[in-house]
């Protein structure tokens, strides 16, 4: 299911003296099955844009295509439920949305809203709790008895239980310890690979974007100023600088190595392993020559 934003502008408090635009003419296409990162500073419009992906916000101008559905400015958007089922959003600090008496019921809340039967929903809860790395006996506990990190995982399971085709993640690892961060990000990545989930990651971590994304879009003051593969985006440090963004650690490290070696590597490496291999290759070449 492709998601396409065409000339989308969004204004908060439209038609009042407090009207304020948060998005300007955003064009962005996210093809089915890709991993798209959206990066930007605070206030760049990241959070506003992600609420357009399932019709929580309706564009003030332009239109949003979600699969076959078109949500356009000025037209009434009815029956958004099917869209919301297909596009799951994990909001920032999703643990704040937990409310049921037990973890099991909370995970079942989403799917049952979309008409999934109780048995199926329960089965999904049992499968997902393991997937997010929690023991099954957590299901009978109150979500409010869990630690912050555990609550986060339960909330994520609650969104995955809707069985979405597209998953939108808004800073899913904010406030977690480094190990938890990596576990969660790796879990989403394997879901992306195994189930072919279209994944949209809104983040300001350059590292995560570099490591996981197929495409990276850069938001700056409500505009989508760049969109391309990580290689493309990170080869131009000056442009990034203009948007007050830094290169990921690994690319900065590569630049320093290149300086030491006095020559540049043929491509930009996005993971440690990649860089090590590339440097080894270059060294070998240098010795052979």
């Amino acid at each position: 299911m492709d998601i396409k934003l065409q000339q989308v502008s969004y204004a908060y408090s439209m038609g009042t003296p407090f009207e304020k635009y948060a998005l300007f003419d955003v064009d962005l296409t996210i093809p089915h099955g890709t991993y798209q990162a959206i990066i930007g500073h605070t206030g760049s419009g990241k959070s506003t844009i992600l609420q357009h992906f399932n019709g929580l916000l309706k564009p003030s101008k332009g239109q949003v295509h979600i699969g076959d559905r078109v949500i356009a400015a000025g037209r009434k958007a009815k029956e958004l439920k099917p869209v919301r089922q297909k596009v799951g959003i994990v909001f920032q600090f999703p643990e704040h949305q937990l409310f049921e008496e037990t973890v099991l019921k909370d995970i079942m809340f989403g799917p049952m809203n979309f008409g999934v039967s109780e048995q199926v929903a329960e089965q999904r809860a049992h499968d997902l709790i393991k997937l997010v790395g929690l023991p099954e006996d957590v299901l009978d506990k109150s979500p409010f008895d869990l630690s912050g990190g555990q609550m986060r995982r339960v909330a994520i399971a609650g969104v995955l239980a809707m069985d979405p085709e597209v998953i939108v993640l808004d800073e899913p690892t904010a406030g977690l310890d480094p190990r938890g961060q990596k576990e969660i990000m790796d879990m989403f990545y394997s879901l992306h690979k195994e189930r072919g989930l279209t994944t949209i990651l809104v983040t300001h971590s350059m590292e995560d974007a570099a490591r996981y994304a197929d495409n990276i879009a850069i938001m700056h003051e409500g505009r989508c100023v760049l969109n391309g593969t990580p290689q493309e985006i990170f080869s131009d440090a000056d442009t990034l600088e203009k948007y007050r963004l830094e290169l990921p650690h690994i690319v900065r490290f590569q630049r320093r190595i290149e300086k030491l070696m006095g020559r540049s590597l043929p491509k930009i490496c996005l993971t440690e392993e990649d860089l090590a291999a590339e440097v080894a290759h270059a060294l070998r070449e240098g010795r052979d020559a």
Partner: protein
Amino acid sequence: MPYERGVTLKMMEKMIFGRYIPGDSFVHRLDPRSKLMFVFAFIVVVFLANNIVTYALLLAFTLLVILMSRIRLYFLINGLKPVIILLVFTFLIHIFFTREGDLLFELGFLKVYEEGLRQGIFISIRFLVLVFMTSILTLTTSPISITDGIEVLLNPLKKFKMPVHELALMMSIALRFIPTLMDETDKIMKAQMARGSDLSAGPLKERVKAVVPLLVPLFVSAFKRAEDLATAMEVRGYRGGEGRTRYRQLKWDWRDTLCMVIFVAMTALLVFYRS
């Protein structure tokens, strides 16, 4: 600013209750104490009016205050629309259910009497004048000044062991957290909507049920915030009002004295002209 106010704010945009519009008109510059005293006394004095002259006096006076506050009448009326509906309703009730005086006209089973019309108009004016005055108070005084004013005005009650400072503190904390809680509500509402909960459609029973996923997280976070705030205050050595100095000093000047004089004059006129 991770989330901006959306859905909830939309409902509040047109409301002007409790909203403050900064400015520097005569009314804005009055001391909150004099404004508070004035409004409370005014609420009492309004009931002195009982004939055309006195009600006209009240209305004229209110218009004068609105003029002096430099708040556009259009804005005020537009913002008070829900109140105006209530007003029309009271007016109609009075017109149709008071059966005194001469019969003015008849429309089927509806009979309108002179006394009913009079009562209807008077009550409406009274209502309107009260609502306008109190709105002007909140529109021209920042919530924090109102709290300061209330605290100082209630100070004498400390002799009777009233926790005046604590009450004022509670009020300012409550005011401070209204926007925060509104943001929070919006955020949670959206998260639950993304999970397929629907607050705006379906039969009433379903809608009431849909409020639970909204209220539980809201309460949980409100309690958490309260606890954090209490800890933060304790850590910074807060021990209540005893010996505490204030950053914002209230100043009584000629405007406030003038305001009191005007009030006394108005009351005198009301007493003189009432029948």
